[in-house]
């Protein structure tokens, strides 16, 4: 084992800058050895340290009366009453999914599940947010089928339903797809577990799968000659998920948490054993001592470096109460899992690691954890920004046949039915899914209560590209509006901020603008951000992805019977629109899909109006006078109307809309003005709905009636809803049918 001091060159190969390396040497008062360098390089990586984002993230509102656990733990938690809390978080697994779509997506789901059940919460619902390149890119179908199969492959096998998500296609993701996974769990508020080590002398236990050489960072580094004598297999291996073991791990951990044995617990995610032990020690202001000889290993001759940095999946680190070791082992034995004491909590606030009786790491915890550098990166708007925002509608011809336009929009991969995706996910397991994928938000009931939670994840990255501030704001309010349309009060946010290289001023500008947008929207809607994730460096060949701050909102339904869906329910109901329609086409799917134009400014966002519209909608649903409620988003009014006609589980219903356009017809039909909700109500409830709208000062328009089997919109559109449904329902499957590669033959 080579424990001699490293040099700067090796440090640079590990991704540290010269200044960071010098700073670290100074902080520890000496030059680290190679194992120690591995430890600091992962702890100070962007992924673990948030060094480029931390300063900016401070701006986000994190407090609120319901917040039980804000950012900083494995996941956030908000109170839902009855002594229960909803625990949730979203996380990215973008790069691994591009390399190996099935396993990358699968292990992404596995990782976020662990973040939630480490808190003591039983996972009850998953969401996923996906971005792929355009269908004319040769790799897109392969990536889509692999990722979707992987999300399903893992979630289905651990028994957590996937109840919703989003999927979009845009050339900007051709070489850099996004896979963001979200998990929600339920926990008793007074039984939340945290990752804060304490109790000098308490044992540290390793539980779950054995350690292999999976996903060790710095692939290039492993080829360095230092490893020749000790490493059989230098090739870094892709992480492969084992959802069966994860299922056992969930049951074992939750069973153990019913006892009085666990002091702290954290999953081994990125940077595995290293980050879990350092972070647990840091939070508890203690030290930790680990003997690598005791770590269960899958492969022979693993070096200390490899064991410490392995990202093998389905593993957890537990600090137990001294004397409770056997209790822990017994529970894990019941579930046929390893549980091994590998170290103990110490009082020296150092990470000390032994292998073969030799001390291979002896580092102070503080500089590794919160001592990581924090950068104020430079920012400046992209030079093209102003140009991109210019849009002259006079140059955009109005369509000759609006029936054709509507039908083409419904077939657009960004609007077409997502059934091809979500039919590959178990939506039922757990027995809580009240509203499955296919409506604005999913609804899962909370067993043992009258309550339910509504979930939605959203981001229109085209808006974010054109104006990251407004785009990010819109992501928050749209996710919230979706949840409101299901009859829920939004109570918490988690975000997954997918951006390019933060060292580029334009990317940093996008990031800062997006954070401001999230901040302002959350403040306006009194929504705390309780957890999240930043994924930088999403670019290929120097081109960053469109900024994609994915927002997931969790909403609370006090009485599950008052939940709502987006499709029309009854013949004869009135069709009503809350909110105003402006002549806005910038950034619309209509312009992109039908005219090939991606420019302009995204729709205007007035947070006060948004708040009022949401309040009116929620009020009306809670009073039980709403038959259906649907958020207007991509494709605008016409698409929303069509979706309300055709997206239900039963025969489609038609609608007759008498109103005529008061603005440019394509803008009226397909424009994406914000803060609008389409509703259907029994005619006898209209008066009350008007009162509610008036109380909130919300604009209300009666558009027409649910009737027959044609969708008729003024003199512009008149089509059979069965035809619309066929187009909309088959489009994604048809696009994917070009995929010759059956997943995992």
């Amino acid at each position, binding site marked *: 084992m080579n424990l001699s001091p490293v040099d700067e060159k090796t440090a640079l190969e590990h991704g540290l800058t010269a200044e960071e390396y010098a700073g670290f040497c100074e902080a520890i008062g000496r030059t680290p050895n190679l194992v120690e360098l591995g430890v600091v390089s992962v702890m100070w990586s962007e992924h673990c340290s948030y060094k480029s984002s931390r300063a900016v993230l401070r701006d986000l509102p994190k407090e609120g009366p319901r917040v039980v656990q804000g950012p900083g733990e494995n996941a956030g938690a908000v109170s839902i009453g009855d002594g229960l809390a909803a625990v949730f978080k979203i996380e990215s697994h973008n790069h691994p999914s591009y390399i190996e779509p099935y396993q990358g997506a699968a292990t992404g789901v596995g990782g976020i599940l662990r973040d939630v059940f480490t808190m003591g919460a039983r996972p009850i619902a998953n969401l996923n947010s996906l971005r792929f390149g355009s269908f004319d890119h040769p790799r897109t179908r392969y990536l889509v089928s692999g990722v979707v199969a992987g999300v399903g492959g893992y979630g289905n096998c651990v028994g957590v339903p996937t109840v919703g998500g989003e999927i979009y296609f845009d050339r900007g993701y051709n070489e850099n797809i996004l896979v963001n996974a979200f998990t929600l769990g339920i926990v008793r508020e007074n039984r939340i577990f945290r990752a804060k080590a304490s109790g000098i002398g308490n044992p540290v236990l390793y539980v779950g799968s054995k350690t292999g050489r999976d996903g060790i960072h710095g692939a290039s580094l492993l080829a360095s000659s230092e490893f020749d004598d000790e490493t059989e297999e230098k090739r870094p291996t892709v992480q492969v998920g084992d959802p069966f073991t994860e299922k056992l791990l969930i049951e074992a951990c939750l069973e153990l948490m019913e006892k009085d044995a666990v002091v702290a617990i954290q999953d081994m995610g990125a940077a595995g054993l290293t980050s879990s032990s350092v972070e647990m020690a840091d939070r508890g202001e203690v030290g930790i001592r680990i003997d690598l000889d005791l770590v269960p290993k899958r492969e022979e001759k693993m070096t200390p470096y490899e064991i410490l940095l392995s990202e093998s999946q389905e593993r957890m680190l537990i600090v137990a109460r001294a004397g409770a070791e056997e209790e822990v082992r017994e529970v894990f034995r019941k579930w046929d899992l390893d549980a091994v004491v590998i170290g103990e909590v110490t009082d020296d606030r150092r990470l000390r690691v032994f292998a073969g009786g030799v001390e291979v790491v002896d580092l102070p915890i503080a500089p590794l954890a919160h001592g990581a550098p924090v950068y104020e990166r430079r920012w400046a708007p992209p030079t093209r920004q102003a140009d991109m925002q210019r849009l002259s509608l006079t140059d955009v011809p109005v369509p000759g046949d609006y029936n054709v336009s509507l039908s083409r929009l419904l077939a657009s991969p960004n609007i077409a039915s997502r059934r091809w995706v979500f039919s590959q996910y178990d939506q039922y*397991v757990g027995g809580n899914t009240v509203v499955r994928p296919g409506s604005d938000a999913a609804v899962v009931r909370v067993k043992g209560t009258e309550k339910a939670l509504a979930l939605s994840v959203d981001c229109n990255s085209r808006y974010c590209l054109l104006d990251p501030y407004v785009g990010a704001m819109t992501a928050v309010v749209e996710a919230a509006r979706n949840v409101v349309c299901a009859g829920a009060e939004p109570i918490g946010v988690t975000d997954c901020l997918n951006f390019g290289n933060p060292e580029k001023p334009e990317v940093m500008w996008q990031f800062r603008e997006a954070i401001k947008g999230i901040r302002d929207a959350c403040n306006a809607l009194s929504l705390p951000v309780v957890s999240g994730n930043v994924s930088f460096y999403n670019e290929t060949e120097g081109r960053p992805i469109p900024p994609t701050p994915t927002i997931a909102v969790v909403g609370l339904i006090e009485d599950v019977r008052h939940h709502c869906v987006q499709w029309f329910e009854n013949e004869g109901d009135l069709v009503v629109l809350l909110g105003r329609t402006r002549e806005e086409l910038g950034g619309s799917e209509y312009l992109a899909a039908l005219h090939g134009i991606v420019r302009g400014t995204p729709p205007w966002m007035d947070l006060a109006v948004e708040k009022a519209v949401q309040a009116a909608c929620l009020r009306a649903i809670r009073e039980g006078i709403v038959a259906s409620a649907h958020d207007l988003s991509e494709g605008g009014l016409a698409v929303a109307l069509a979706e309300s006609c055709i997206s239900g589980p039963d025969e489609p219903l038609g609608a007759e809309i008498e109103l005529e356009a008061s603005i440019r017809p394509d803008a009226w039909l397909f424009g994406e003005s914000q803060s609008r909700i389409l509703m259907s109500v029994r005619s006898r409830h209209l008066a009350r709905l008007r009162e509610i709208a008036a109380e909130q000062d919300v604009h209300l328009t009666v558009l027409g009636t649910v009737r027959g089997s044609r969708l008729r919109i003024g003199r512009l559109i008149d089509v059979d809803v069965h035809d619309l449904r066929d187009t909309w329902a088959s489009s994604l499957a048809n696009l994917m049918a070009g995929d010759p590669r059956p997943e995992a033959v």
Partner: protein
Amino acid sequence: MKFGVVTFPGSLDDADTVYAVRDVVGIETIPLWHKDRDLHGVDCIVLPGGFSYGDYLRSGALARFAPVMSSVVDFAASGGLVIGLCNGFQILCEAGLLPGALVRNQSLTFVCGQARVKVERADTPFTGLCQRGAVLRLPIKHGEGCFVADESTLRRLEDNRQVVVRYVDEGGAATAGANPNGSLNNIAGIINEGGNVFGMMPHAEHACEELLGMKDGALFFRSIESWVGREVRR
């Protein structure tokens, strides 16, 4: 009347089944543990859905060796009622308690959705409360639900009227379009020759509650209850 629901490592719908049958349908139901051979006096054993042992080699292949399964086999041999749902059906086939096997869906993808099945037999302990020919709506969710058997087995199944439920369209016709996984003869569920072991891919347990959208599944559990009740009186 008492149901027992087996939990294997990797079972997923076990707790849902206990909840649905006990708390929603209202029939006494207890969990059974794979390592425990004692059946605790239950009248009907449910092998639930999930991915027992990960289903990595073949679905259901490992579960049949669990200690509880030797008791299940004896129980079935003595005429006890056994129902396997999804993974449970796969396990029953692997254990040889039902003929045939379940292989990868024709699409090679997992399918989740609602299926319609026609009740071909209303004279079994599992379907006694159904109308013969009735079309039920039940959820399906599986990657390996394509029922296959060799020709003679298939003929025997049909001749003996062992096909209990079949995938059909709205009109009750067993069309290719109504077949979600490529099963031969649109078979969704079969019974053994003795008439006491039943397996099907659709999830009766996830169709017991109006709030969750479907309630036809409760018919199976109620049928079993009423059959057991009659047996006891006899």
